[in-house]
């Protein structure tokens, strides 16, 4: 008599166990989508780049000083696009790093709790503005403004795109940097205060060095953001490939070039079509290095205390 319910319970338990295993497998396969995405990105970029590099030598790609892939006499010098990317990123970072750092130190070490509660949502909202809107702002507001100071500035230029990009990156840098500084234990600060240090001395001589790897991570992730930013430069810096490090000129970045080609209708499989994947691979590798470095540094500051 007592055997039947026991067997029933056993069967129930077994089916429950099977259900649990199935659920776990479903969850695991969802998590693997992230891995599949990376594999997909690498596969597509490498596949198209291989056919690109079978027609264009990699030495030309790295040393040619012209980028005219759609001309009858095509040249494929990636440095032309890289110069635009590096120049606009350098301008952006020369705004974003000082402003972001000062902001982070202020919010973490000086501001009252109430000030922080007001400032952080403002920064978050700024970070939430679509980049195409920033691009519009750079082209129709910042460039005319700069022209008042420097009338010879062309309508498209790296300067205005870079400056606006810098403002866009400020909240990003300041939030990571602030996190890093808040992770510095209070006892370090208290020790310094007990020695008679002022707030600024504590901030600059104790907190900043202690949070150094976190700050470095913030800067590196900021660089990666600037290098990969697309719409601001596509709208405001022009799309004309131009080998220059002069911020008052117009130039295409890697990202702007991809947008320009993709907007047109290039036949699938042509060299022109493949150039955007070769350019994309360059971009991906560049940001990958920065991202991995930033990830490593961030992990380090999290583990330190």
């Amino acid at each position, binding site marked *: 008599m007592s055997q039947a319910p026991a067997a029933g319970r056993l069967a129930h338990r077994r089916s429950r166990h099977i259900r649990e295993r199935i659920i776990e497998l479903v969850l695991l396969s969802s998590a693997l*989508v992230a891995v599949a995405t990376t594999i997909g*990105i690498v596969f597509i970029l490498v596949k198209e780049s291989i056919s690109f590099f079978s027609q264009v030598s990699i030495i030309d790609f790295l040393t040619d000083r012209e980028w005219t892939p759609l001309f009858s006499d095509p040249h494929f010098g990636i440095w032309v696009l890289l110069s635009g990317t590096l120049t606009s990123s350098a301008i952006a970072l020369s705004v974003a790093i000082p402003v972001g750092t000062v902001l982070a130190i*202020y919010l973490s070490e000086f501001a009252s709790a109430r000030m922080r509660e007001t400032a952080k949502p403002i920064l978050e909202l700024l970070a939430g*503005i679509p980049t195409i809107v920033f691009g519009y702002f750079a082209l129709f507001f910042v460039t005319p403004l700069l022209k008042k100071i420097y009338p010879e500035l062309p309508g498209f230029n790296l300067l205005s795109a870079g400056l606006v990009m810098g403002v866009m990156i400020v909240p990003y840098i300041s939030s990571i940097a602030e996190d890093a500084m808040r992770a510095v234990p209070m006892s370090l600060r208290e020790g310094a205060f007990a020695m008679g240090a002022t707030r600024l001395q504590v901030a600059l001589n104790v907190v900043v060095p202690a949070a150094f790897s976190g700050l470095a991570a913030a800067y590196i992730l900021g660089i990666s953001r600037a290098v990969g930013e697309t719409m601001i430069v596509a709208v405001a810096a022009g799309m004309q490939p131009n080998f220059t490090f002069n911020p008052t000129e117009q130039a295409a970045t890697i990202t702007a070039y991809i947008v320009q080609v993709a907007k047109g209708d290039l036949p699938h499989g042509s060299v022109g079509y493949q150039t955007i994947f070769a350019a994309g691979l360059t971009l991906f590798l560049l940001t990958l290095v920065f991202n991995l470095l930033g*990830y490593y540094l961030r992990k380090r500051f999290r583990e330190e205390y």
Partner: protein
Amino acid sequence: MAVSDSLRATISRAKRNDLIFVALGIAALLFAASTFVALFLDMVGDGLSRLNPSFFTEFASRRAERAGILAAWVGTFAVMLVTALVAVPIGVASGIYLEEYAPKNKLTALIEININNLAGVPSIVYGLLALGLFVHTFGLGASVQTAGLTLALLILPVVIVATREAIRAVPGSIREAAYALGATRWQMVSDHVLPYSLPGILTGVIIGLSRAIGETAPIVTIGAVTFIAFLPPSPVTSSPPFLSFDWLASPFTAMPIQIFNWTSRPEEAFQANASAAALVLVVMTLLMNAIAIWLRYRLRRNLNW
């Protein structure tokens, strides 16, 4: 006397430096805030006159004063629907797996590094992935489904990280109590952990979608067309089975693409359209962000473990 004088001088100098830094911090904050205000006022100034009801009910047109954003906002809505339907289940499931199931092994470490890296991959690279994989390999075309899937992959890291943080905030005692009552792991997760972490997950989903709604580069890259004078087919039909999924495969345009298109026109009249559309887009994203910030604020206030 002389010693105390020099000491006093040192102290007052240190205090002055403190004040200078506070001023610098506030200046940095004001700089960020005033950029935000300038951007907003600039858009309002240029675009407000175009914001009448017909702007929302007219298709794009060659004549600027008759052009509207009907196709754009409907397209954005359709794409966001696909994005949410794909990104939310996969992202939440990944987050659950990593927090509640994942053993500490190489596979888990690989998944985590992948998610971290994907968060830093420039959005345009997702566009290249979609162009190579979804458009040309799977033959999905430059359609609503391609854009939705692309943006879903793009915001996946945001959803995963938010889910993980929300789940991590649920105290272990809740899990132990569920286990003590004989719950299986999935029962514990679905009946206890998930309900408690829902507001946090929701916040992350909204922030992810607000990022997706403004993303331009990936959908330009897949070749979305800018001049569209029709809407995707209706999902509800008059004949059985009354539901149609044709809209998924329909060509589309979206708000950011429409803004980009109008920004790149030389005529000034289109510039007003661009700023009006940008204003609509910014209001959309700000609204979503504000909801997310408010949700998080309420969440922090109401939860006391």
